[in-house]
Every structure is written in structure tokens, then in C-alpha cells.
């Protein structure tokens, strides 16, 4: 029986987390879920959400956009298209990106693009509200 999970969180731009953690919470295509050590093998698409994990008494929050999460053998792999630690958020930068996306969404765009932009918007919204 293991008492830790090994979490690796990567975005295309960098490796954000690579350490032993006690638990991980996130939201996937099928809803929010929590992972504890000895979770059964599981793989899901992530939706934009606040991913939290705990090491001892400390909890950490990371905003992730869409991506994928895989857990097996007490290893959690998270692949996020965008990811940022809540403490590293540059509000002004995210606000302007948020505003730009909002105005783009008001314009005429294809359904496909709309879905994608909405997901991005959700990411920025979460980043601003946390």
C-alpha cells in the first residue's frame, strides 16, 4: 500500500510539478474527481479547472486549461495545454487576454472556433477569479 502519489504536471512550455503528493483534485469530462494513493488506473480528458494537490498540510492550486490526465501505478501524469500556478498569475496580462477573447467571441466565428475560444476564456476566467 503506497501512501503517496507521484504527480507530474507538464504544459508544452514547461514542467510545472514533479513531486510526491498526498492527493490531487481536478475536473474531467465526466465531472470533478479526487485521486488518492492506490487509485485504479484511469485516464480522462480535462476541462478547464482549478487543479489542487496537497503535500502534507500545504495545498497548491494550479489553473489548467483543457488537457489530459492519466493515473496508473500511483503515478499521475497531467498534460495541460496551458497551466499556471495561482500564485504566479499576472492579473493585468490575463485580464487583457480575457478581454481580447471576449471581443473575439462576440464576432462571427465558426462553431468549432467558438468552442475552442470558450474553453480558453474559461481558463482565463478561472485564473482571474482565483
Amino acid at each position: 500500500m503506497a501512501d503517496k502519489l507521484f504527480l507530474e504536471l507538464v504544459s508544452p512550455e514547461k514542467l510545472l510539478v514533479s513531486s510526491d503528493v498526498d492527493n490531487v483534485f481536478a475536473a474531467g469530462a465526466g465531472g470533478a474527481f479526487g485521486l488518492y494513493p492506490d487509485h485504479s488506473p484511469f485516464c480522462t480528458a480535462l476541462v478547464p479547472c482549478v487543479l489542487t494537490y496537497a503535500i502534507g498540510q500545504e495545498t497548491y492550486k494550479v489553473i489548467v486549461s483543457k488537457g489530459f490526465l492519466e493515473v496508473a501505478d500511483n503515478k499521475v501524469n497531467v498534460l495541460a495545454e496551458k497551466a499556471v500556478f495561482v500564485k504566479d498569475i499576472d492579473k493585468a496580462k490575463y485580464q487583457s487576454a480575457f478581454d481580447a477573447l471576449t471581443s473575439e467571441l462576440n464576432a462571427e466565428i465558426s462553431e468549432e472556433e467558438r468552442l475552442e475560444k470558450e474553453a480558453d476564456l474559461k481558463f482565463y476566467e478561472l485564473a482571474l477569479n482565483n
Partner: protein
Amino acid sequence: MASARDIKRKINSVSNTQKITKTMKMVSAAKMRKAVEAMQSARPYSAKLAELIQELSNRAGGSSDHAFFEAKEEVKTIYLVVVTSDKGLCGAFNSNVLKAAQNFVKENKGKTIKIMPIGKRAFDFFAKRGFEIVEKWVGFGGKYTFNDAINVGKLVAKSFINGGADEVHLIYNEFKSTSSQVVRSKKLLPLAIEGGSEPKYPDFEYEPDVSELLNNLLPQFINTSIFQSMLESVAGEHGARMVAMDNATRSAGEMIKKLVLNYNKTRQAAITTELLDIVNGAEALK
């Protein structure tokens, strides 16, 4: 023979050039360090992604019906993504890629080749030679974000699916070390991922199901491949420029040495002539 003053002027001009090349070398060294860092931090993502796709295609039994896997019966049009730098002065860095691209075009005679240049050098090269340019991405100055790669990837995927391109190839410089870059050419689409071997974990749960996950992952795989090639190319560019500028600095140094020697000789000759004049004059007066 050039006068001493001419030589002096030349020495000054060469040492100015040397100063510039030396500075460029140092700038490239600093930029390269950053570029290499960016490249290395992108590696875990692409490695993990490839792993996940492999695992999923094993599970799907290699029978994924995603359009990316569909090899066309007759390949008529090939899109070629060529990654170069925007600026020159980096030795054979760009010409190696362009040469490889040209060889590729030669090998595929009879097929329509359309170019998607990333970097100004590739665009200039192919536009001048009358190739059809699908879309160009220039002027990033080596600062690529993942969004740029997504834009390229989307267009690539779209043209493959709607039949505009029957195959998509990617040519770029891979960063091996500071002094060596290797030209890589790979087929982006159709994808060739072997499925069918035994999945690692038999009782995996998937949300949503396997094929839907795989369909979401595959475009991302294309984007990551493009992103990786962009970053490799940027790091390689700075490495190549550093080496080229180092060589230039060294040859400028050698040239200065030669010129100084020449200058001294000329000066000495002038002094000797002057002395002779004086001696002769004095001699004549006797």
C-alpha cells in the same frame, strides 16, 4: 603598394568588424542558453504525449478510424513545412535545411509540392523560386509560443482532412549540440503509430471512451511536433550563429595580424626611402 595610411584604415575597419562579430557571438550565446532551456522544458510534454497516444492506440487495437491515420491511395499534393530562421549570418544553418527541402522536391517529381514556410529565410527562398506558398509564418524573431504552433497545426490538420494535402512533411534543424545541428525530415501526416501490442494495464478506465480521447489527443500531437521543431530550430540557429561568429572573429584577428605586419613593413620602407633621400641630398652638396 598601398600606402601606410590605406593599410591603417583597413586595420581600423577590420577591427570594427571584429568587435561586431564578437558581440554577436556573445548575444547568441546568451540567447541560445534560453532557447535550449525552452526546448528542454518542452520535452517532457511531448514525451508524455507520445507515451499516452501509444498506450491508447494499443488499447484501441490499432483500429482507430481517425482521419489522421488514413493514408491516401494516390499522393498528388504534398505540403512541406520548412522551419528556418528569420535572420542570416548563421553559417550553413539555413542552407542545409533548404537544400534538404530542395532534394525532397526533386525526389517527389510529378507531385505538387506546396510550401508552408516558418521563418523568413524559407519564405524568401521558395517564393523566389515560384513555389506555391500556402501560408507563411515569419517575423517571430525566434519567440514562438505554443499558440503559434497550434495555428500551424490547425491549418495542417484542416488541409489534410479536407483533401487539400495528401501528405504533410516537416523539415527542420535538430539541435544536437552547440556546434552541430542535424537536418531532420519527418512525415507529419498521415500518422504512423503502431498499435496492437498489449496494453500495460488491463483494467484502465476511460472518460470519455478510448477513441474519443485519442481523437482529442492526435491534433495535439501534431501541434507538439511542430512546436518542438520550432524550438529545436531556434536553439540550433543561435548555436550555429555563435559558431559562425566565433569563426569570423578569429579570421578577423588573423587578418589584423597580417595587416599590422604589412603596415609596419610599409612604414619601415617609407622611413628608409626618406633617409636615403636625405643622405643622397647631403652627399650631393659636398
